[in-house]
């Protein structure tokens, strides 16, 4: 039975309203409805897996007909986002368990957010896309507000940047509306292919500003750390795995299907055999990797580290997509899937730790491995994935991006990308060390593992990361269909990896994992045959002979990489933040002068009116003569 696209779009909205109404009865009823309506898209979507529906007209306003449609790219994203939304809704039930009214509102807003994201993905014309894009921004604004104590400043920062992006996109839409006369994607693509370069360039840059803000790429990443860190945990999962990917999805869709790569290469000057705009974007992606990684290393707050890490990873995705070669785009798309999985996993684990210990400040945590083993194992898999180490999924996508960079013969970008990988290894170890290893604080003695249902999201994402890591063929099935849709010839792949093909040396993760397991078995056998090791209490530690007592705090956690500060000290001066501060300062002084105009007595207003009248009339007269 086929579900029309409109049904898919409206189920989350309907589910949200129903859950909100059910909250009047009882909290558990609301939760049941909430989860059911999160599961329904799983049933509806497989129908459209390999069908491409276009311009499904559902409304006509002022002569323009708004249409929905689905294609391999949006169906892949829809499936991924429904999974993330379902898991974060499970987490949200626990997080907002005892927050009554606020919990009901959060449930409503999360389901509406899912609806908005579906809307953006299903849109086939720029007006529907813009409506849902704005709805998404507003809903995120509300959800972020329910976070930690600095959530309000996070809200302000997010909404200002979202508005800047929205306005720049609105300008592009209006320009296209007047020029192309029609708002459907296909008509616009047709118009753009013949439009003059200046129009194409302006619209692309205006759209790009909107997407890159959403995807928190380097110049526009200022709002990301505080918003991800201060939002409630389930919302920060949605932010990092879904909202950021929507920005990158739109970039991929617009850059390839609407504007079209060959469109760029024709119009713009060639730089090292790719178009100028794409080359600049590659360098912006590389810069985001470096900035995201080096700042994530020195953070003291668990969620800040993850926020900066997601900025760095989106730099990888942008780098992959803007390469334009089939290998690079495949790497970028695969990294979108992988990043949503392992970043969601890490946010869930940190959320679980905060749910139990109540703090996200790393120096106050430590030694939780004995109390929360399941969280430790899932975080271990998560950090191996973030660092891009073979057995897990982070490796495959980064591997494709590196090979694509080699194929395009750009050594400096490859060096920056590889260095980002080693850098990510540092802050990722800092995270797991400060939370799970080291000395257990007294107040955390009574901490127990996260409740069983709350472990489901962690376990599901950890297994998914392992599965996609060892058998990259599964996600590659979707990615290759998307590449075909975007007009690039998809790369060859098989279930266990990538066979030898031009520009790509065969990478086979299952062989690596099997040999690693074999090595572990040999070492484990040797370890097991030798005399057993007796457990020793934490305080029975080498402390230069001194006897350790319980009140001695000897956990090395605060300022873990403090010496790293003065390694990157010379680079700290040119931070993007200072540019914005000086800009804000300029606006304040300008505003101060403007304030003096309103003196409050009538004569000044009248004289101003007369002066303005004179100026405009002059322009009108002169204008008439000159033109």
């Amino acid at each position, binding site marked *: 039975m086929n579900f029309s696209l409109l049904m898919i779009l409206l189920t989350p909205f309907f589910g949200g309203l129903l859950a909100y109404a059910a909250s009047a009865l009882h909290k558990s009823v609301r939760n049941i409805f909430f989860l059911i309506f999160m599961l329904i898209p799983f049933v509806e979507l497989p129908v459209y897996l390999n069908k491409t529906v276009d311009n499904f007209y559902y409304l006509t306003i002022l002569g323009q007909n708004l249409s929905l449609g689905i294609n391999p790219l949006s169906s892949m994203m829809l499936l991924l986002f429904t999974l993330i939304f379902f898991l974060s809704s499970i987490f949200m039930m626990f997080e907002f368990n005892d927050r009554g009214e606020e919990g009901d509102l959060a449930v409503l807003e999360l389901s509406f957010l899912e609806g908005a994201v579906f809307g953006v993905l299903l849109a086939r014309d720029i007006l529907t896309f813009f409506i849902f894009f704005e709805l998404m921004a507003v809903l995120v604004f509300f959800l972020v507000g329910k976070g930690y104590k600095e959530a309000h400043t996070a809200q302000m920062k997010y909404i200002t940047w979202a508005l800047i992006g929205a306005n720049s996109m609105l300008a592009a839409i209006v320009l296209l509306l007047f020029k192309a006369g029609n708002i459907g994607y296909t008509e616009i693509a047709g118009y753009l292919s013949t439009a003059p370069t200046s129009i194409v360039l302006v619209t692309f840059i205006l759209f790009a500003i909107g997407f890159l803000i959403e995807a928190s790429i380097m110049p526009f990443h200022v709002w990301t750390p505080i918003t991800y860190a201060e939002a409630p945990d389930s919302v920060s999962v949605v932010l990092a795995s879904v909202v950021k990917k929507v920005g990158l999805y739109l970039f991929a869709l617009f850059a390839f299907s609407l504007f079209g790569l060959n469109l760029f290469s024709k119009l713009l000057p060639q730089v090292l055999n790719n178009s100028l705009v794409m080359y600049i974007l590659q360098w912006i992606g590389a810069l985001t990797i470096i900035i995201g990684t080096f700042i994530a290393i020195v953070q003291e707050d668990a969620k800040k580290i993850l926020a900066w890490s997601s900025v760095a990873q989106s730099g990888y995705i942008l780098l992959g997509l803007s390469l334009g070669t089939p290998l690079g785009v495949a790497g970028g798309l695969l990294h979108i899937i992988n990043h949503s999985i392992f970043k969601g996993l890490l946010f869930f684990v940190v959320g679980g730790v905060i749910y139990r210990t109540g703090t996200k400040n790393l120096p106050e945590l430590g030694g939780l491995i004995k109390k929360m083993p399941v969280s430790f194992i899932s975080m271990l898999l998560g950090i191996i994935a973030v660092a891009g180490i073979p057995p897990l999924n982070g490796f495959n996508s980064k591997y494709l991006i590196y090979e694509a960079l080699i194929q395009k013969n750009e050594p400096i970008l490859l060096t920056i990308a590889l260095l980002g990988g080693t850098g990510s290894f540092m802050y990722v170890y800092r995270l797991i060390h400060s939370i799970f290893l080291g000395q257990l604080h007294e107040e955390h003695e009574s901490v127990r593992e996260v409740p069983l249902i709350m472990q489901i999201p962690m376990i599901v994402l950890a297994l998914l990361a392992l599965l996609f890591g060892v058998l990259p063929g599964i996600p590659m099935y979707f990615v290759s269909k998307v590449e075909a849709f975007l007009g690039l010839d998809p790369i060859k792949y098989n279930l266990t990896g990538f066979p030898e093909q031009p520009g790509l040396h065969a990478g086979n993760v299952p062989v690596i994992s099997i040999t690693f397991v074999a090595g572990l078995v040999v070492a484990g056998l040797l370890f097991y045959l030798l005399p057993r090791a007796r457990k020793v209490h934490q305080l*029975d530690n*080498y402390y230069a*002979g*001194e*006897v350790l007592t319980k009140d001695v705090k000897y956990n090395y956690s605060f300022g873990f990489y403090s010496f790293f500060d003065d390694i990157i000290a010379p680079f700290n001066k040119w931070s993007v933040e200072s540019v914005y501060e000086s800009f804000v300062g300029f606006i304040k002084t300008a505003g101060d002068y403007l304030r003096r105009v309103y003196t409050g007595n009538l004569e000044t207003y009248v004289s101003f009116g007369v002066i303005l009248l004179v100026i405009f009339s002059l322009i009108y007269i002169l204008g008439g003569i000159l033109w």
Partner: protein
Amino acid sequence: MELQETLEEGYVEILDHLRKRSLWMLHYCTACGAIELPPTITSRFDAERFGIAPFVTSRQSDILLVTGYINIKTLRRLITVYEQMLPPKYVIGFGSCTINGGIYWDSYAIVKRLDLYLPVDVYIAGCMPTPMAVLEGFRTLMKLIDEGKANGWKKYQENYEYYKENQRKVLKW
């Protein structure tokens, strides 16, 4: 069954023969004897040719060198370090202060006999033995290990209560 024992005992003997060639010395200098160690390790006397090298943490090392007088404050740390070491472990007492209190025989803070509190395998006489004497002490220890006689740590484990009783008498807390 006795084949198993001979094998077992033969295995232990080969192990002891190999083990004596690699002894790691804990760099824990309690008193004035410690100044004799650098010349023993470096170029002139070179203890490393016997496989003896200084190591830092108690977990990694086998020999605990008690180099000189032991006052109560040091004895408490010494016992902690000894118990942190992994058997088979050996204790070498340097100088007369560990044997019978030496020049501090009348002091209110110095313990007279080390082997009341820790099982000592080798004593090296001298009011700070010279590097040659230290090397001689190491060689005797290696001979003892080879003959399987250097099992001070087994003695400590067997009559653990006796040692703890002596220690409690001296260390009041």
